[in-house]
């Protein structure tokens, strides 16, 4: 088990990268703490798998170093790094039985047969395949095969880290939830460092203590699920996490007030003068509907009932705005204003969040 440090890391698949765009993975410093469960979240093609393969040693980075604790492992292969990895699509050895598949990594390392037998039994129980241990892996269904792959990834106890590359893509939804729970249980039991790549936010938020969000070859935010929800550091995080994503509205900010297309919106903090493209972001959960009075005048497009709540889709000065309303709340016919909870508004300049100079509450205190 080890702490994994990425030092000045960057990777390009081109031989001679020049521009920023040539890099699949842009320059990155990051520490994966020992024994934590991380989710690596991002859209397809954002560099997640590249990063994972660099950590596991299947890929040598173009620049920078990878450290396990204080040991430089940049040029070492996966065997020396002692890492387990599970891939997106099932990899099973067709001609072996299920049991032999699970025992394979242990046998290759010359472990004691008695230990192998108990370990295989334990993992088989975990993935629910005790009955088919003696069956050939060929001809099993895709999700059974993927369970074997998962099992092979977890059968070794002494690994430095276990990496998962979207492992549940081919698994049935109800089985997904069960396996994820088991992965968590395993993490609690053995305390392996786990990195779990996914593009599914639910999966990321339920599995991990810390979520790393990647966008366009960069890590844009590392935080707990709560932090990602409340203070997205980048507009991508706001948009990617949450359903529906965060509302973003072009604005001019001065002090503790934002002006959106001529309408004033109070903010939860005061800001210094901002240069660049300024937007305010607010989660649909913190938007309320009103009839006249304060708030942004909007045109309501439609209301979707999704069971637990309703999603209101409206438009303000050409920008779509969504709000989440309680399940039973009727939408009044005259409703035409949306109000934002000032403390929940984040301000973005060129897509990155800016922190307020001080919260408005302090200002008010000073005024008193």
């Amino acid at each position: 088990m080890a702490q994994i440090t990425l030092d000045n890391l960057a990777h390009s698949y081109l031989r001679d990268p020049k521009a920023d765009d040539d890099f699949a993975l842009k320059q990155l410093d990051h520490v994966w703490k020992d024994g934590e469960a991380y989710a690596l979240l991002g859209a397809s093609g954002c560099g997640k798998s590249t990063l994972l393969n660099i950590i596991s040693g299947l890929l040598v980075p173009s620049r920078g170093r990878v450290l396990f604790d204080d040991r430089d492992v940049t040029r070492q292969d996966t065997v020396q790094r002692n890492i387990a990895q599970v891939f997106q699509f099932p990899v099973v050895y067709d001609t072996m039985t299920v049991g032999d598949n699970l025992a394979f990594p242990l046998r290759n390392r010359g472990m004691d047969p008695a230990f192998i037998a108990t370990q295989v039994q334990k993992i088989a129980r975990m993935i629910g395949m005790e009955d088919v241990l003696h069956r050939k892996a060929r001809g099993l269904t895709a999700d059974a095969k993927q369970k074997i792959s998962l099992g092979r990834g977890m059968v070794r106890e002494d690994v430095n880290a276990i990496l998962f590359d979207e492992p549940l893509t081919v698994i049935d939804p109800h089985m997904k939830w069960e396996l994820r729970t088991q992965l968590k249980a395993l993490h609690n039991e053995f305390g392996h460092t786990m990195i779990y790549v996914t593009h599914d936010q639910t999966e990321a938020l339920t599995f991990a203590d810390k979520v790393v969000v990647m966008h366009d070859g960069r890590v844009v935010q590392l935080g707990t699920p709560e932090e990602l929800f409340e203070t997205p550091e980048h507009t991508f995080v706001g948009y990617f996490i949450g359903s529906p994503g965060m509302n973003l509205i072009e604005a001019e900010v001065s002090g503790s007030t934002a002006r959106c297309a001529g309408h004033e919106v109070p903010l939860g903090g005061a800001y210094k003068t901002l240069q660049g493209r300024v937007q305010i972001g607010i989660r649909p959960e913190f938007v309320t509907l009103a009839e006249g009075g304060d708030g942004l005048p909007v045109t309501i497009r439609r209301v979707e009932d999704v069971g637990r709540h309703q999603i209101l889709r409206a438009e303000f000065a050409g920008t779509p705005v969504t709000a989440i309303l309680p399940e039973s709340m009727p939408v009044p016919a005259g409703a035409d204003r949306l109000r934002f909870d000032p403390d929940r508004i984040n301000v973005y300049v060129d897509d990155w969040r800016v922190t307020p100079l001080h919260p408005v509450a302090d200002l008010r205190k000073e005024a008193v």
Partner: protein
Amino acid sequence: MDKVQNNRAWFLVLPVLVLVAFSAVIPLMTVVNYSLQDTFGNNVFFWEGLGWFEDVLTSSRVHAAFGRQLAFSAIILAIQIPLGIAIALCMPKRGVWASVCLVLMALPLLIPWNVVGTIWQILGRTDIGLLGYALEGLGITWNYARNPVHAWITVVVMDVWHWTSLVALLAYAGLQSIPQAYYQAAKIDQASRWKVFRYIELPKMQGVLLIAILLRFMDSFMIYTEPFVVTGGGPGSSTSFLSIDLVKTALGQFDLGPAAAFSIMYFLVILLVSWVFYTVMTNLDKAEGR
């Protein structure tokens, strides 16, 4: 929707039927005709029944040719399949050199069979052939025209040179279709090179290898041109494989009856082997698709 029933549509099949009749059915029936009768020319036939078939089945000459044929096919399969796989494993996976290798490998396959025979006939001669001359320089008196062992070695090496590429190309195609994740997983599982081959590459190549074996078996079982050009079936009859022996019977001795009976049984043997392979392959596909 109503289906239109019109039996005149059968006439559309007629051209194909006529074509197949002329190209396959009529020649085959001629052979059947010869196999059951005896003739001394002038289109005068005498009914012979199954006599020729009995003759062929009990002929020690045919038995010997059949034995040689089986031995030849077994030897070239035993060499070409492992060698082809080995070559495929050594070929670069991508880049310019992959294309260069593919073209080089395909070259022997493009040479006409009698040219291949001529090449090796000349190559093995001690006076003007590079191979024969070199062997003589090493103190081995190479004479494929006199020494049956030399004749066999020459014919086998020639076939290996000519056809191993086919096996290698098929195996290469099989290897190329293995997803990268398998190799990565094997690395992580710390599998040795041998285990990667045994548990990943070989099982994934199974399908193409069966096709390779089938093709090579069929081709070698029917081989005629190349050994005929090199050795003419000799010395003696030591390299007279089935089709060379057949041609000797039919055109050398003009024993049309026995030759026809021989042809039919030859054809049936090949049909039987192909059927066995076909069954094995379809069963394999079913097991795969379960």
